[in-house]
């Protein structure tokens, strides 16, 4: 009968890896840094794990982390959004121009996020309405939006005053202690909690998962596949808009050439977090942990004095490892 039989060891292991995989990765990275020595032969753990540095790691997680929330929804629905990096740049430039023009922070946030949602709607509309491949559509919008950002910023970075309301969001106070955390970190955590509940527990979230798992089945079960897709890309645009504001706040300038390739970092965080690129599964918590893991790797290796290219090689390997785990995990269900 149901519910009582013992679970096969391998199946159990697979499921455990699905939930715990990103955390295990984070623990391994921490362990590595706990024993690593820098170029002068000194243990690196003191500089890496001191509260002030951990705060910096968290701050460095925010843009990728918030972007990963939107990307998780997109990937779970069976799609992909390559325009994320361009959107972040566009929204940050838009925000910077509005601030320079004297708009209040609330208006800046609203308009920047609205721009993100608008572009997301266009992406989603093209994908759902004309049944185009998400990869191609967002590859196109990646270039279009990047161009628009450069046009909007007249091809240069627009600096904003250090004391503007937007700059305060990511400002680090008392650099020696972990708390207080910048507002941006809290915003990321609250958005993550809300998105996690929506994805796991709402009827809409279930429909997103269903569309990604099997579109035909979703249709058969009365899911409005097109509306769900449009909503997913619009939501992703919302998160990329918020991430753009965070980017603007952290750099205190809106730079149209920033965040090139950011979409790949975001996708990597989502995949490390346990999402399957073929759709139908993924976790918000995992994506945030994935973003944290990548920020820690970047920060730690530069504390060790390792060259940039070593970081890139390591992060690339972690991504391949994560995808390999995903494949193995799915082995049985196929």
């Amino acid at each position: 009968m149901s519910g009582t039989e013992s679970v096969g060891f391998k199946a159990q292991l697979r499921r455990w890896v699905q939930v715990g995989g990103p955390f295990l990765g984070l623990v391994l990275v921490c362990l590595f840094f706990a024993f690593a020595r820098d170029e002068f032969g000194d243990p690196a753990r003191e500089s890496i794990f001191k509260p002030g540095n951990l705060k910096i790691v968290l701050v460095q997680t925010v843009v990728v982390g918030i972007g990963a929330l939107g990307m998780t929804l997109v990937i779970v629905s069976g799609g992909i959004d390559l325009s994320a990096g361009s959107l972040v740049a566009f929204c940050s430039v838009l925000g910077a121009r509005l601030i320079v023009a004297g708009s209040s922070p609330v208006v800046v946030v609203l308009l920047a996020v609205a721009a993100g949602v608008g572009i997301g709607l266009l992406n989603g509309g093209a994908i759902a309405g004309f049944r185009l491949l998400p990869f191609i559509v967002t590859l196109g919008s990646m270039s279009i939006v990047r161009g628009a950002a450069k046009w909007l910023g007249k091809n240069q970075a627009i600096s904003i005053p250090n004391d503007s309301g937007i700059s305060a969001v990511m400002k680090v106070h008392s650099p020696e202690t972990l708390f207080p955390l910048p507002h941006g970190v809290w915003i990321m955590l609250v958005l993550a909690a809300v998105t996690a509940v929506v994805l796991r527990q709402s009827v809409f979230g279930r429909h997103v998962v269903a569309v990604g798992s099997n579109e035909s089945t979703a249709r058969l079960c009365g899911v409005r596949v097109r509306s769900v897709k449009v909503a997913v890309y619009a939501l992703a645009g919302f998160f990329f808009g918020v991430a753009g504001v965070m980017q603007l706040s952290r750099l205190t300038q809106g730079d149209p050439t920033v965040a090139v390739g950011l979409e790949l970092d975001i996708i990597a965080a989502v995949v490390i977090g346990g999402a399957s690129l073929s759709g139908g599964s993924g976790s918000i918590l995992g994506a945030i942990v994935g973003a944290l893991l990548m920020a820690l790797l970047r920060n730690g290796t530069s504390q060790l004095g390792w060259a940039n290219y070593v970081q890139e090689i390591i992060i690339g390997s972690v991504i391949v490892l994560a995808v390999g785990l995903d494949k193995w995990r799915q082995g049985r269900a196929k």
Partner: protein
Amino acid sequence: MRLRLNGIRKSFGATQALKGVSLSARAGAGLAVIGENGAGKSTLMKVLSGAHAPDAGTMELDGERYAPSDPLEARRRGVAMIYQELNLAPHLTVEENIVLGVEPSRWGLLDRRRRREEARKVLADLHTSISPSAPVSALTIAQQQLVEIARALVHEPRVLILDEPTSSLTGVDVEHLYAVLDRLRARGVSILYISHFLEECQRVCSDYVVLRDGESVGAGDLTTIPMREIIRMMVGREVNELYPRTPHTIQGPLLELRRLAGRPKPRSMSCVVREGEIFGLFGLIGAGRTETLRALFGLDEVESGTAHVGGMDVTGWSPRKQLRGGMALLSEDRKREGLLLNRSIAENLLITRPEPISRGGFLRLRAEQHMALDWMERLDVRAQGALQPVGELSGGNQQKVAFGRLLYHQARLLLLDEPTRGIDVGSKASIYRRIGRAAEQGKTVVLVSSYIPELLGVCDTIAVCCRGEVVAVKPAAEWNEHALISAAIGQSAEGEATGADEREL
């Protein structure tokens, strides 16, 4: 004895797939390997074909020890396997596929002439006119299957294993396959035949072995044993009635199709299904039965014609709207369309009607799980729990989940497309009981099936489709197997087709 297995055991982790299988196959004879889904047939075939090594037990081939380390060695020893899914390289030609892995060569270069000769020889053995130079992708499924068999023949097989070989073939091709198997048997090849259709087994085999829960529970002469006895061995209990008749009352017309045409099929479907009726739709593959259901339910476009349910025009409604209106469809292809394979049983069962388990658009996870467990017990779904991915279940249990979704949805009109395809006898019986109970509760069932005994056993009324139209409608009791097939191929007498039933429009 050609092949003898003794006490074969095989475990995967904690799961014991084979707990002790013994069998023997005679040269030049067919042995039917019979068992429910999950009984261990597939594992046994993989052990035989060298894909898995057994944990214990012995195998003998013509009196010699047989322990292949991989499928290629098994083939060299003369044990060949034809899988349910064909394993051909579609871009290569027929002859390239036939010699794949054992290409004749000289000095490391391909010997094209010998390749052609070898391919010609085995194709001729099969009495087929397939050209050796044709690309496999240009062949029909039946021809591709012959190429697979030809590939097996290159090695002078002593044992040929076929797993559900007719699942994608039509009637004529099935007969051709039987003829090929007859010739191979006459040449002394021993054939291990796996099929859910006992009638097929009887046609091809003279011996049988029954597997249940990884053990061989019976073996003997297939020509003398009654079918009931075999079914009893398969399920481990007496199956009194495979097709239980539940009394139910049939009322006035509920579903009316008037010259419904879809793209590209059906052409013009007209019929009336009464409330509380179990209405069968029979026809050959391609007659447009599946497409009728799909156009009705809104999965395919309606070109012309109308569909009314309870007097309301529902033509061209989306699946979402039809579900709201109490219509639900069970897809014929549960893997590609019917189920979200990587998602849990609970999600699959409950997706169409979240209201009882949600509040304000958010699901109550505990209520969801209880609801799912409750339904799993009612449907007799065997699983580790409500959160197990449905793709890990056996075919029969998957189908119970897919069907259960319609019942949980409380659909009044159930469109069932081949609901028992590819599932074991026990699960079939359970689906039939469910259909009967649905009718008892006043629900209406439209049953599309290619399996005649099932239609005759379950339905009140059977309509036959031919080339996208209904050609005859009669109470099930007035049909028999012969009449159904004649009508389906358009052979029925004029009067019989039109005059016999005033319900045909």
